[in-house]
């Protein structure tokens, strides 16, 4: 079947629902997903789950800005970035499930849907940075800058991962994140080096994000140095101060923001577990 434009395809009966929510084919269809010898399947699954959860939750926060951004172009940009991350989440969650089927909740759903829609907050492993709710556009750009800079550095390393599936996901992700980081960095500079008001709000956005930066890095000094160099360059161009954190957030566990996010994101799938849309 072919159509004159993408919208005709949406209205076709029995179409493949390509722009909708669930019922997609396995994103790893036809790929060799056996775990290579020498790779610990459980460890691989956990890494993919964590990376997938970060992408899924950040994608949801970006989607919330559809119809709320300052300009139409930015709504489109944020939706695009959210879509890229959702794509990364699908592949990573599917990879996690293939490596360790035991982590998938037992429901009549595809692996990726089961992991996204049928786990509770305590079983999500995303960093707290991505789950924080509220905030203005400056806060969103500060968060996106931190997230994209960190994840880009991380995925660049994973391009050499011993698991070829994870390595391939990382290589594609790097190309996408390069655009995400540039987008966020340009806004941070534009607001920081803009009016007195935009400067102050950008500085406040950075301050609100910074308590959640240290926990991204564990003890990986090299990754942290790469991250710091990029942030220093952006802040200098935007006449912004890199915040000094005086308030350490409560230790361990998710913030109070994750449960309401999941309640919304999972509501349709849980209310109508047999539905595809």
């Amino acid at each position, binding site marked *: *079947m*072919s*159509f*004159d*434009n*993408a919208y005709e*395809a949406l209205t076709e009966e029995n*179409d*493949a*629902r*390509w*722009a909708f929510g669930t019922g*997609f*084919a396995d*994103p*790893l*269809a*036809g*790929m060799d997903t056996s775990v290579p010898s020498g790779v610990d399947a459980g460890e691989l699954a956990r890494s993919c789950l964590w990376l997938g959860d970060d992408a899924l939750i950040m994608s949801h926060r970006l989607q919330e800005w559809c119809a709320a951004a300052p300009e139409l*172009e*930015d709504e*489109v*940009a944020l*939706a*695009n*970035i959210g*879509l*890229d*991350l*959702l*794509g*990364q989440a*699908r*592949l990573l969650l599917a990879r996690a499930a293939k490596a360790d089927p035991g982590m998938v909740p037992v429901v009549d759903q595809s692996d990726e849907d089961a992991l996204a829609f049928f786990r509770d907050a305590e079983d999500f492993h995303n960093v707290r940075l991505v789950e924080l709710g509220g905030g203005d556009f400056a806060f969103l750009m500060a968060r996106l800058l931190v997230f994209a800079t960190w994840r*880009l550095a991380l995925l*660049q390393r994973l391009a050499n991962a011993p698991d*070829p*599936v994870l*390595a*391939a*996901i990382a*290589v*594609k*992700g*790097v*190309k*996408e994140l*390069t*655009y995400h*980081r*540039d*987008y966020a*960095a*340009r806004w941070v*500079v534009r607001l920081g080096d803009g009016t007195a008001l935009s400067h102050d709000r950008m500085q406040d956005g950075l301050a609100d994000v910074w308590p959640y930066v240290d926990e991204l890095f564990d003890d990986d000094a090299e990754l942290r140095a790469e991250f710091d160099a*990029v942030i220093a*360059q*952006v802040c200098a*161009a935007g006449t912004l101060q890199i915040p000094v954190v005086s308030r350490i957030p409560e230790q361990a566990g998710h913030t109070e923001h994750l449960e309401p996010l999941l309640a919304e994101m999972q509501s349709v799938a849980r209310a109508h577990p047999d539905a595809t849309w």
Partner: protein
Amino acid sequence: MVTARAVAETVTDPELPMLTLSDLGVLRDVQETADGVVVTITPTYTGCPAMDAMRADLSSALHRAGYGEVDVRTVLSPAWTTDWITPEGKLKLAEAGIAPPGAAPRGPISLSLVPPVKRVPCPQCGSPDTQLLSEFSATACKSLRRCRSCDEPFEHIKEI
């Protein structure tokens, strides 16, 4: 009987219907087997929502041509690059008013705090004087530009 490859090469992209999947460089391989056909495709962007439509379109085209079992597989590596869009594909894009991509970036990734200056001629009037409006547009693979000569906005397949 028409070869499976020839059939698969007629299938068009759901979002860029002026291009075949082959023009776009996402059709990576077509193998006829004893039972049917194995087709391999690769996504442009990780989140590209058109992959399922591509699978369905490839299957139905091959079924119509008389092939039985059709197995459409995904491959992620090597990652798709705009350099795989064929010269013919680039011409078709330009004819449809979408500026084709230049050469994909290579080498180390650098932070770019100002959009890089790219010479992207207007697909409507041909003027080289065009500006970037947004790196993101109606689909993941396009950016949005405007021509300063004829004032028309247009889309550009961004290089990856």
